[in-house]
């Protein structure tokens, strides 16, 4: 059986997502970059000068990969969730639903668009990290591989919540009550080694910890957990999230009557 893929449609949707990001650049591109710069200057350079080393590197160097992950997670989830919800709310998603596009092509189109946005933001921060903190990834394959995997995981989650949401407010539920708190305690600002034992144990059930710990390895060559374990957890979660998003789109959940 030949499986035909309408790749033009998928790339069109990806381009559409990029157009959307550019149209709202002051809302989605500059804020994460400015926020990251503020974190680097306030936490990394000002407060960080009082901390000698974390995991064998300066605090500013320790901070950069965590901040990149923070923005990759935030932007990939935000892009897909708000775009899918908006499409449903304005009915503009019907343009795709009536076209010869499969559920997979629609989901992957959104995810590709979201991935581009996350990669652009992440790499701007990477360059800023190189300029201000003089740190660069040591392992580029891991750097791009983990970033892509994490972006796919959170983009797919964004698709799921974009489909579940009944109003814009619902999209923020996951960000406010799960993503942001878990990312902040998940090792962006501190090493798990510096945490009290009960919090250290909590990190083992915090998926964000695995993403940040593994990604930091691409910069420092060190991680708290074995790399294979983190990659397995991130990969497993990405598959589960992607599978759920594809299934929801395939049955037309809140898309087709």
């Amino acid at each position, binding site marked *: 059986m030949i499986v*035909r893929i*309408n790749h*033009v*449609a998928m*790339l*069109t*949707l990806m*381009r*559409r997502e990029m*157009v*959307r990001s550019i*149209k*709202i650049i002051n809302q989605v591109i500059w804020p994460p970059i400015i926020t990251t710069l503020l974190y680097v200057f306030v936490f990394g350079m000002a407060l960080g000068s009082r901390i000698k080393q974390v995991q064998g590197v300066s605090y500013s160097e320790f901070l950069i990969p965590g901040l990149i992950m923070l923005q990759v997670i935030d932007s990939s989830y935000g892009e897909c969730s708000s775009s899918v919800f908006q499409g449903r709310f*304005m*009915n*503009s998603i*019907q*343009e*795709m*639903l*009536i*076209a*010869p*596009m499969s559920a997979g092509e629609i989901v992957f189109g959104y995810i590709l668009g979201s991935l581009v946005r996350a990669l652009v933001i992440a790499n701007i921060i990477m360059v800023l990290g190189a300029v201000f903190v003089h740190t660069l990834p040591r392992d580029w394959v891991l750097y791009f591989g983990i970033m892509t995997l994490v972006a796919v995981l959170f983009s797919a989650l964004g698709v799921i919540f974009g489909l579940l949401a009944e109003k814009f407010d619902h999209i923020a539920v996951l960000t406010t009550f799960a993503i942001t708190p878990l990312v902040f305690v998940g090792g962006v600002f501190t090493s798990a080694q510096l945490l009290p034992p009960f919090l250290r144990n909590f990190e083992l059930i915090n998926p964000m910890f695995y993403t940040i710990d593994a990604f930091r390895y691409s910069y420092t060559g060190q991680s708290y957990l074995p790399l294979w374990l983190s990659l397995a957890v991130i990969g497993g979660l990405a598959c589960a999230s992607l599978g759920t998003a594809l299934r929801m789109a395939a049955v*037309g959940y809140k898309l*087709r*009557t």
Partner: protein
Amino acid sequence: MSLRVEAGDFFGFLGPNGAGKTTTISAIVGLARITSGRIEVFGYDNVTQWREARRFIGLAPQEYNFDRYLSIRDVLIFQAGYYGLAPRLVRERADELLEQFGLERHAKLEYTKLSGGMKRRLTLARALVHGPKILILDEPTAGVDVELRLELWALLRRLNAEGMTIFLTTHYLEEAEALCRNIGIIRAGRLVALEPTRDLLARAGRGLQDIFLELTRA
């Protein structure tokens, strides 16, 4: 309901509010899931051969559902992209349609900046951009002034004369009477009339409005 619309027909699909017109359209274009029965579009089953079936259909929905982030030229180009047509192949087609529908001066605007009549024209242009063989129109002249209505009628007649099959739902019975070669009337999901417009009018010897009320009265 069992219904067959011949290729090249100008078919009017009428019925009171809630009769099932939009649901039928949604089922044809794939916006509604079909739980029983089947629909074929130019010989292609719209569930098992949905890609082929959908390529033949152009839909002009009643509500404006344009992408608010795109210029109206890009609305056309991106819509064609969803149908698998690469942008370089459709730019010319999009410009032709913008010109044909008198929208070329507004090509770079977002749709929110257009008047109601222009939005209606853009709905039709978008439905035509991928070169469908059947045009499904859900209340295409709702809320437009007389001048634009006549203009749209002329355009639809021309498209039909060029071979386009047209499936029209409307609440304006004079519109159906003026345009449609065949008419189906639906009441509560059931087809209560299906015949050539001329025969329907001749049979009753009255206007379409009287026949419509008689057939659709609860």
